[in-house]
């Protein structure tokens, strides 16, 4: 076992490091280091301007969209090179948050299912950050049950007319294009009556509305679609093949190889090493504190080292297993636990948002809210456990009430 690069990896790392050293917006480094939410929230500069600038710079130098082929503006890196690149990009990777969905999911879907013309026209602009994409799959009544899409697309000449509502769409307000799954035949069973499209987000009838989260952040949007016309040429795949196309998109949801999933443990450790819980007694010296922290510690390090195991597999040319599905399940609930623990340490003052010592309050309130949200976003704890049970452990799927039932006859709350 070792943490060393192979000579090829070391050479690549040196090249990446040099370029980043010379080109990254270092003046933003500190602020970027404090980014917590999925949405870029810089204050010193306009976030989108900074994001586009960094993307353009990377694109010009051939570093953009590391996993894409060169013909579409990508860097065509090997899996392990991508990991090294992302390690070296470090905090600056946050600047790519607005393009996360576009580059990670929409682009690859277009590559797999789009026409040559669409690919040539759209992908390089998406890679360089000139254009951005969003993804419209989830609906208010299609969350964990993602295929229960009710947004309706009806053929009208060369167009489709779309009505419905989508939700949980990141960066919809900054997107030029969007992937959209809609139901084109409600008389077929759930997965079979769906079709995939892409549309101009400025089309008439598209209304984007931000969602205020319990953390008081707005990372997501609702999208209302009223008689939106989409040319049939913007259909991806055949009519009724939408679920198959969607699976391409979802499989490209970048496996979490981040080595720094934020459980909050590091913050808590530091906090406890400074907080006096009794006169002359630091929290860190208390046995209850140590016991709680220890469990947070091994979850935190466990996730980091699990990521290292995955990177090693990549380095050896293997595909990392579905083991990465444990990551979000662990860190989201750990963050929630850490938050309650950190607040409790402060006694009654723990309920203050703006404490006497603001620098020392640990930011636990934010964790409390974000942890609760992250236990749901991107797949609830329950869905993640099902995924582990079924895909990793090979256990049977849940019994299905909607199997082979025409979608318009599947029981719903509306009836």
């Amino acid at each position, binding site marked *: 076992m070792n943490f060393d690069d192979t000579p090829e990896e070391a050479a690549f790392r040196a090249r990446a490091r040099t370029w980043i050293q010379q080109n990254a917006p270092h003046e933003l480094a500190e602020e970027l280091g404090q980014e917590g939410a999925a949405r870029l929230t810089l204050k010193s500069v306009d976030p989108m301007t900074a994001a586009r600038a960094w993307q353009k710079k990377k694109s010009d130098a051939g570093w953009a969209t590391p996993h894409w082929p060169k013909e579409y503006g990508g860097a065509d890196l090997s899996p392990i090179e991508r990991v090294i690149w992302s390690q070296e990009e470090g905090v600056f990777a946050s600047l790519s948050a607005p393009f996360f969905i576009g580059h990670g999911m929409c682009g690859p879907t277009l590559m797999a299912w789009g026409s040559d013309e669409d690919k040539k026209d759209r992908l390089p602009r998406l890679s360089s950050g000139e254009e951005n994409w969003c993804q419209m799959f989830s609906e*208010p009544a299609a*969350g*964990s*049950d993602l295929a*229960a899409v009710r947004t309706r697309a009806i053929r009208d000449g060369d167009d489709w007319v779309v009505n419905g509502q989508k*939700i*949980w769409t990141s960066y919809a307000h900054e997107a030029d294009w969007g992937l959209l799954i809609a139901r084109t035949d409600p008389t077929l069973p759930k997965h079979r009556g769906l079709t995939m499209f892409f549309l101009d987000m400025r089309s008439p009838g598209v209304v984007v509305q931000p*969602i*205020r*989260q*319990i*953390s*008081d952040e707005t990372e997501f949007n609702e999208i209302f679609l009223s008689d939106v016309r989409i040319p049939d040429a913007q259909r991806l795949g055949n009519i009724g093949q939408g679920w198959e196309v969607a699976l391409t998109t979802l499989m490209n949801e970048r496996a979490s190889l981040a080595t720094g999933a934020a459980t909050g443990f590091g913050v808590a450790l530091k906090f406890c090493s400074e*907080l*006096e*819980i*009794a*006169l002359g007694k630091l929290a860190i010296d208390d046995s*209850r504190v140590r016991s709680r922290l220890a469990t947070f510690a091994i979850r935190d390090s466990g996730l980091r080292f699990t990521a290292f195991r995955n990177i090693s597999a990549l380095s050896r040319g293997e595909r990392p297993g579905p083991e990465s599905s444990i990551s979000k399940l662990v860190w989201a609930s750990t963050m*929630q636990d850490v938050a*309650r623990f950190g*607040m*409790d*340490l*402060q*006694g*009654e*003052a*723990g*309920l*203050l*948002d*703006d*404490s*006497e*010592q603001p620098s*020392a*309050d640990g930011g636990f*309130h934010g964790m*409390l*809210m974000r942890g*609760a*949200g992250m*236990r*749901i*976003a991107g797949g*609830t*704890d*329950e869905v993640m*456990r*099902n995924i582990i049970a079924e895909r990793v452990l090979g256990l049977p799927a*849940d019994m*299905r*009430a*909607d199997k082979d*039932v025409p979608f318009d006859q*599947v*029981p*719903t*709350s509306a009836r």
Partner: protein
Amino acid sequence: MQFQFSEEQNELRNIIQRFLEKECPISATRSVMDSAAGHDAALWQKIGANGFLAAAIPEEFGGAGSGYLELCVVAEECGRALAAVPTVSTVYQAAELLQLAGSHAQKAKWLPQIAAGEAIGAIALQEGIGEMIPERVTAHVRGGKLSGGKSPVADGLEADFAIVMARDEAGGHSLFLADLRNEGVERTFIKTIDPSRKHAKLHFAETSVEPLGESGQGWRLLQQVRDRAAVLTAFEQVGGADRALRMARDYAMERYAFGRPIASFQAIKHTLADSYVANELARSNAYYGAWALSVGSDKLPIAAAGARVAATQAFQLASANNIQVHGGMGFTWEFDCHLFYRRSNFLALTLGGPALWESRLIERLHADMREGEKMI
């Protein structure tokens, strides 16, 4: 054995429930959240006018003199309604301190106002981060004038008077009653995890105060009253936990996924069953607290700590599970789940957090065991 509320008390509960359903929809609490107000002043006045705050205050001082069990019922229903009212500070603590240690004049002045919902009393103990211990008290009184800072002070923003822990001239820890309309009081707003319950930082500069209770007895008095408040607050938590569970249940029955109500999935069923178990344990522990409070049992310190620990766990669990069962909707600001989640974490730290009460509970059970006493 009547280890439950009487029929009369349950009738009172029905009355309060009907009152709060009308006067305290969630939208009322949301209005407080979105405003600069620290509490729902209109609701507070109405609750007072209806006599709900007067249960444990003697008739002599404008109260109903009905007793603590009735007050437990009021607390549970306020918790269920998520009412944004200063019960914990004013009714569970200030009124109790006045009764326990106040002079006749002090009682005669403030208790009738509290009973009627016309005065708010804050408890000013904490001086910043960390569990409050005697050594951390720096506020002091010289010649009847109080100086020093106190933060956080629940309901300090709009309180009429405060009961303040300070060092007196003899160096003892004593309680003082400060009319907050006196000179030298500065109040600063502070946000809390629950925006419907804002706190304040109070700064006293040579503010005129009067002693409350004997010199040097501040800590003992406060602890006695905090035990009473722990029981009553536990009922608020139990009420909130019960409502959070019901919300989750109702949503799970109504929300469909994969062609069936999500309430039919074991993952959801068992999550709700876990909430139910925690809630039942909390309720039963709270009842023991209510009994001890109502009969003035010397088991109150144990009963109060047990009620507090169990209720905090239950409400935190039920409110987190409520968000989880609601899925994506649960983490939108628009849905009400986070209000219960915020309130649960707010109440968990009011009166000191779980670690403090856990430690107290065992310390007290241990002392009791050494005395070889029985539970009842």
